[in-house]
């Protein structure tokens, strides 16, 4: 049986399911039907089972984790806590409620002490949830730990869960909620984990069920046949071979160069990007410098960070995007007004323009870092809506010493009038995630409208084509820096529409490199035409696939 979802990346994996259970509701405070002694036995039994389980996991984990898990086991059997539970049971409470209240009182005590003790409060919560889950005979909340590699099935993952994931154990991620830009999807792209998100029917999967997670086709295969398993294993091997292929520059079959660049969120990602064969950076997000900050970082601090990045890409192109605040990533010192509709509010270049000092300082720091290194620095502004904004940013960047200034095309108005926007600036880089959101009027973070969020939609492709045509006429570069470039076939379509560079998560580079090498520029034009002529996203993808299959068949028979 095939469960439909949205595939992240091109991977495929197979293995047994382990489900992540949601948090438990607070046990109701009602009189117990049992006597206090019987409830006490229930509580002690569950406390002891949980302590044993924690000790067992500790012994398995070893190291620092063992100390934490053993300390948690001691908390479960702590005599002071047990006394507290007994006292509460004597008033006629259920074991569930008494355990909940006793743990909560210690939790509040520790949390009130702050600092290190505050962190132990979370450990205590975790133990309490495990004990109550055991009493209720339901799975404990949080990440599963079946003791073998597994396919994690969850509603969606919170950032705290993703930080705890043991990547040696997780074969693939499947979520029932969440769209292509959910935390789970971002983590999966970042760490190159096979994932299918928004597969609502995956809620029916149970622990231990064998599944195939096929991200390329956006499906989870439940109860796979022997033939399906064999095919999946073959594809896993094939991908391993492709990942080991030599790191050549991005190039079409006819020799047309299409530089393959990396999307990075901090300089820490540079070594992995270079290792994956990135020919530079197509999108360097600078938000990390500003997040959690009450005020903007100093020019000196910024310069040090940019210098570190540029040094890692000596002699290569690095496209830095100035601060993109607002909408899903508000910053206290930039967006203080409460907006009814923040995606359409004061964000991107609009927010920077109303706080020009921040923009001037960032451009100054970038120019200084550029002067001190020999990378080829390009700087671009986010959320540019028209030629006037493009001119404003380009002039200001030049004034402050930036040699190559450009704009991101994410707003349909900028794509529709790309000839006038590009005439006012040095280059364009298309952010396909936001361009899709604004073209389709579908919030990119909202799972309920995820069916509108495909960059394959011919309306989105048509806008990309408009920018590509303007770039070709004016001789200006047009890059793609949205996740669309990470889809191997869509990457060919984007090149056919006029993209001159593609930027993506480093983990996608190998698949896209292999895909580009199969087609000539004429092929890319033909595939793009087929996609553009379709009615909707799914039809465009199917049309592109069918034309591409015909073209590779010709190549294969010719050789």
């Amino acid at each position: 049986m095939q469960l439909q979802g949205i595939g992240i990346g091109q991977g495929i994996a197979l293995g047994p399911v382990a489900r992540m259970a949601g948090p438990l509701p607070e046990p109701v405070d009602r009189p117990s039907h049992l006597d206090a002694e019987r409830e006490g036995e229930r509580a002690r039994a569950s406390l002891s089972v949980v302590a044993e389980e924690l000790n067992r996991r500790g012994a398995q984990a070893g190291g620092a984790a063992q100390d934490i898990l053993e300390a948690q086991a001691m908390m479960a059997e702590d005599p002071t806590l047990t006394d507290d539970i007994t006292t509460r049971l004597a008033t006629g409470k259920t074991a569930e409620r008494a355990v909940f209240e006793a743990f909560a009182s210690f939790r509040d005590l520790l949390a009130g002490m702050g600092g290190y003790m505050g962190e132990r409060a979370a450990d205590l919560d975790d133990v309490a949830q495990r004990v109550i889950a055991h009493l209720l005979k339901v799975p404990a909340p949080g990440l599963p730990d079946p003791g073998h590699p597994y396919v994690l099935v969850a509603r969606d993952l919170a950032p705290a869960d993703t930080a705890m994931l043991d990547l040696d154990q997780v074969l693939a991620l499947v979520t029932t909620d969440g769209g292509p830009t959910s935390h789970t999807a971002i983590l999966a792209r970042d760490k190159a984990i096979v994932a299918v998100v928004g597969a609502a029917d995956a809620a029916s999967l149970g622990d231990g069920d064998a599944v195939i997670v096929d991200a390329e086709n956006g499906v989870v295969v439940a109860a796979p046949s022997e033939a399906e398993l064999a095919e999946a294993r073959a594809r896993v091997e094939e991908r391993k071979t492709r990942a080991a292929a030599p790191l050549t520059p991005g190039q079409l079959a006819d020799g047309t160069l299409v530089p393959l660049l990396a999307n990075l969120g901090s300089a820490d990602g540079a070594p992995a990007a270079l290792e994956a064969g990135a020919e530079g950076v197509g999108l360097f997000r600078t938000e990390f410098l500003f997040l959690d900050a009450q005020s903007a970082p100093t020019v000196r601090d910024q310069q040090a960070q940019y210098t570190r990045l540029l040094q890692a890409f000596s002699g290569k192109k690095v496209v830095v995007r100035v601060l993109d605040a607002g909408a899903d990533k508000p910053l206290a010192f930039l967006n203080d007004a409460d907006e009814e509709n923040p995606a359409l509010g004061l964000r991107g270049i609009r927010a920077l323009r109303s706080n020009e000092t921040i923009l001037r300082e960032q451009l100054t720091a970038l120019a200084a870092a550029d002067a001190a290194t020999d990378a080829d620095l390009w700087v671009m502004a986010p959320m540019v809506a028209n030629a006037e904004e493009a001119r404003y940013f380009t002039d200001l960047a030049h004034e402050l010493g930036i040699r190559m200034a450009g704009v991101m095309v994410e707003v349909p108005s900028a794509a529709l009038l790309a000839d006038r926007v590009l005439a006012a600036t040095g280059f364009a880089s298309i952010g396909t995630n936001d361009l899709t959101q604004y073209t389709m009027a579908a919030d990119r973070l909202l799972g309920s409208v995820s069916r509108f969020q495909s960059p394959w939609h011919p309306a989105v492709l048509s806008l990309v084509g408009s920018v590509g045509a303007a770039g070709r006429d004016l001789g200006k570069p047009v890059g793609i820096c949205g996740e669309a470039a990470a889809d191997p076939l869509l990457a060919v379509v984007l090149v056919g529409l006029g993209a001159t560079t593609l930027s993506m998560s480093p983990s996608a580079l190998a698949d896209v490199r292999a895909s580009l090498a199969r087609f000539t520029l004429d092929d890319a034009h033909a595939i793009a035409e087929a996609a553009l002529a379709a009615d909707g996203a799914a039809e465009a993808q199917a049309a592109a696939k069918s034309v591409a299959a015909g073209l590779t068949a010709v190549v294969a028979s010719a050789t």
Partner: protein
Amino acid sequence: MPTAERTVRIASSHGLHARPAKLFSQAAGASGAAVTVAKGDGAPVNAASILAVISQGIDHGDEVTVAVDGDNADTVLDQLVELLLTDHDE
């Protein structure tokens, strides 16, 4: 029943939290004796209770009094004091 008691300063650089507290409570529980620990002039708490121990908020350099009531009280006290005088956070 024989009782032994001693006052010492905590050696671990992060105090009697985390790993040192775990080791101390573990040893107190395993000794079979009744062991209490008091911070400064505070009320003694059950040393075998890790929650009671860590909620005392005992830091590096704090004075604590350990009291052991049971067989081999002196030997048990020596072992426990030894734990408190070792810096486990090195």
